[in-house]
């Protein structure tokens, strides 16, 4: 049911801070003793795909899989920094060949050791077009990807030539092009290792997965719950402080919230819109309000002739200046969003506030710029969105702003559901002017927000934006020697967007959630997931 405000796609590993006895940044009240063997319940839903690492691209399956598996690296939930997990170190001298050294002592839940082969076999299998993994294109940076994943027809090879196993604890990854921040990508759940048993029966495995993560699979009662328990021999830095997570299926956020208030559910995903105004009162110190690495934008159909003119960037800047982000986020969105001032979300590495100079409300300047740019084509703007995702209210509010402040005739154009909307966006049809867009971080790095959406011909470039300058800066950033240099490089590229305005940044998402009186030490990371392993069940 479209109760949730949106579906959060694209997940990555959320894990817990290393056990530091003092530094628990929990927002819970007084801490009492905890029972390390007790499980807690979390609001989830029936996964859309079998539980295979490269098939988990939606929240319900993703959050389970990322608890069952650990990859080479993950992100420290306290600060979003890259953190070594199975990898001991990942070295590169040229940002193209990466030498991976694994720690020893990691095992899968069935007791078999995690070796270099576990990773390489897993990636080769997941990338293979024959195996129908939704996230197969995550491996497209690796040399030889096109052999196992051709544009058409059958794969020529079974393996990618870029992956070489040296011994049990060493392997090399050679990429087709330089990607200086490739290790950031490695935290994505698709890069998890798989035990040898997987390849005998991938389908069966998808119903009863065996991973190497902090939690192991116990049972899956379809459409009702998925039960996991803490893995005793877990070798990661984030050992669970609880006995396991039970993922309870809810069809609506309202039902979950009612259960949370009566202690029949311990932690939830996102309170329903109907409770946004009251949840802080209802839950008191057990309410959660923390930033998320996700942004909402209004993107333009730059591939249409009347929007591709050289001067129209001024019109887009003007439209952006006519939007009162502060008021809309406070009133219409009830504080569930924070005004945006850049094209990357708050809190990701390389985020620079204020990059979008046209993101401040300035009615006089808005009118001037729109006139200078030659006006909005036909003096009317249609913002297309999907009616099943709770977008109507803010689209109408934005349109009211634009109408009142600039005189442009702005209207919302709802498509019945998400499928239809995405179809219209990707086929470049049935759209006229503008549409709802946005990005949820796959990994907390600015490159993820910029490269995927604004490079010429990038897979998620829905606007048709093409700028030689932006591409050049992005390429330089990709070839930078270190991740830090790549961050600054992409910040420069982001500066080009401030001039061209292919899309209007609106606001960043926030996590509005809460927990029951039975648990403590609950905090959320920027992926919008609780820090699972840190949650304590009161004893």
């Amino acid at each position, binding site marked *: *049911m479209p*109760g949730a405000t949106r*579906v959060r*796609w*694209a997940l990555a590993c959320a894990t817990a801070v290393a056990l530091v006895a003092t530094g628990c940044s929990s927002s819970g009240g007084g801490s009492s003793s905890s029972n390390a063997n007790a499980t807690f319940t979390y609001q989830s839903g*029936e*996964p*859309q*795909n*079998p539980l295979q690492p490269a098939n988990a*691209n*939606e929240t319900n399956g993703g959050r389970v899989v990322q608890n069952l598996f650990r990859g080479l690296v993950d992100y420290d939930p306290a600060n979003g920094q890259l953190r070594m997990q199975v990898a001991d170190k990942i070295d590169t001298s040229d940002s193209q060949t990466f030498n991976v050294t694994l720690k020893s002592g990691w095992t899968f839940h069935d007791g078999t050791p995690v070796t270099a082969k576990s990773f390489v076999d897993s990636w080769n299998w997941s990338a293979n*077009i*024959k195996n*129908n*993994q*939704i996230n*197969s*294109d995550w491996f497209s940076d690796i040399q030889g990807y096109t052999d196992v*994943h*051709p*544009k*058409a027809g059958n794969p020529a090879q079974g393996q990618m030539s870029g992956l070489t196993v040296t011994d049990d604890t060493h392997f090399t990854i050679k990429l087709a092009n330089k990607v200086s921040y490739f290790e950031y990508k490695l935290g994505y759940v698709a890069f998890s290792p798989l035990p040898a048993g997987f390849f005998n029966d991938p*389908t069966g495995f*998808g119903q009863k997965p065996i991973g190497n993560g902090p939690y192991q699979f116990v049972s899956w009662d*379809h*459409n*009702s719950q998925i039960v996991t328990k803490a893995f005793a021999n877990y070798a990661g830095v984030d050992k669970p402080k609880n006995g396991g997570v039970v993922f309870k*299926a*809810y*069809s*609506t956020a*309202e*039902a*979950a919230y*009612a*259960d949370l*208030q*009566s202690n*029949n559910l311990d932690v939830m995903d996102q309170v329903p819109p109907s409770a946004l105004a009251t949840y802080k009162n209802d839950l008191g110190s057990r309410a959660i309000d923390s930033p998320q690495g996700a942004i909402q934008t209004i993107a333009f159909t730059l591939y249409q002739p009347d929007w591709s003119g050289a001067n129209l960037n001024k019109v887009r800047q003007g439209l952006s200046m006519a939007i009162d982000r502060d008021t809309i986020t406070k009133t219409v969105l009830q504080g569930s969003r924070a005004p945006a001032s850049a094209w990357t979300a708050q809190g990701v590495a390389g985020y620079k506030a204020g990059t979008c100079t046209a993101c401040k409300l300035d009615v006089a300047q808005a009118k001037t710029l729109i006139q200078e740019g030659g006006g909005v084509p036909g003096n009317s703007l249609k913002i297309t969105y999907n009616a*099943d995702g709770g977008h109507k209210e803010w689209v109408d509010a934005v349109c009211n702003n634009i109408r009142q402040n600039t005189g442009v005739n702005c209207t919302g154009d709802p498509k*019945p*559901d*998400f*499928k*239809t*909307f*995405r*179809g219209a966006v*990707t086929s470049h049809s049935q759209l006229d002017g503008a549409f709802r867009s*946005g*990005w*949820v971080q796959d990994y907390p790095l600015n490159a993820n927000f910029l490269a995927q959406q604004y490079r010429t011909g990038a*897979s*998620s470039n*829905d606007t048709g934006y093409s700028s030689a300058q932006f591409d050049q800066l992005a390429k330089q950033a990709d070839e930078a020697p270190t991740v830090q240099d790549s961050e600054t490089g992409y910040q420069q590229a982001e500066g080009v967007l401030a001039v061209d305005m292919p899309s209007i940044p609106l606001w960043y998402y926030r996590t509005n959630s809460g927990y029951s009186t039975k648990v403590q030490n609950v905090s959320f990371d920027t992926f919008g997931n609780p820090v699972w392993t840190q949650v304590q069940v009161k004893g």
Partner: protein
Amino acid sequence: MGTYVLRRILQMIPVFIGATLLIFLMVYTLPGDPIAALYGDKAADPAQVAQLRHLYYLDQPIWKQYLHYMSNLLQGNFGTSFTGRSVTSLMGDAFPVTIRLALVAFFCEIFIGIPLGLLSGLYRGSMLDSLVLILTLVVIGIPVFVLAYIAQTIFATNLGWVTPTVQDSTDITQLILPGVVLASLSLAFVARLTRTSIGENRRADYMRTAIAKGLPQRTVITRHLLRNSLIPVVTFLGTDLGALMGGAIVTEGIFNIKGVGNLLYQAISHKEGPTVVGVVTVLVIVYLVASLVVDLLYAVLDPRIRYA
């Protein structure tokens, strides 16, 4: 009688084929590409999408898809959903839950609705009659989701008698509250229907005869009055059983019950042809069987109706 039942069963075959074809076409004409939608807001990889479309037989023309589906169906294979599970097992999870919920609601309708209507009809114009009329009118006037939220707030959040949502759908006691909510609207109809029907038949000739014969009042009411008055009520209950099985989406959502309504809603929103057609096919059969049972019950209730 036997030939009548056989003829009715044979009539189900064209209805069944027609219904599946219609539903199949409806799902097919829904806008949007279900495979691309699996990718969410991210761009779909065209090569992988083509592979998946082939896997789910979606790259074939519609008539081929339908024939493929039907030939599988005749072998008892309902196909697989995008989750990789067979539609049979999805329905095996959902139908028992919904059947339990529907039975709770159904019993409410019979054992509360009919007595209320009977008393109301026997004591026309009394305080009790007015009370029943007002109450049923209120229930008919309030949308089911409002009732459900009110019930949830009062009995779960304020009084704490039950949990706000159903924790275990195999536990029939947890289904009582949602069952009563689900039944409420039909219960009001049943009560009013019974009342009207009783009112009409009270003054019938056979009633006068029965009373004149000096039969005890209980016999008069149960054997003569109720039996004749229940025909419209039974008709309503029969069709309502089908509706309860297929249409509890709102109630199921509020009380978090994972039944057929929820399954069907999800399947339609994902444009999962096999699941939608499978579930609706079963529902069509439920409707057909229910209406056959109703028609057979007429003969039991009213000796004047006999099938040649």
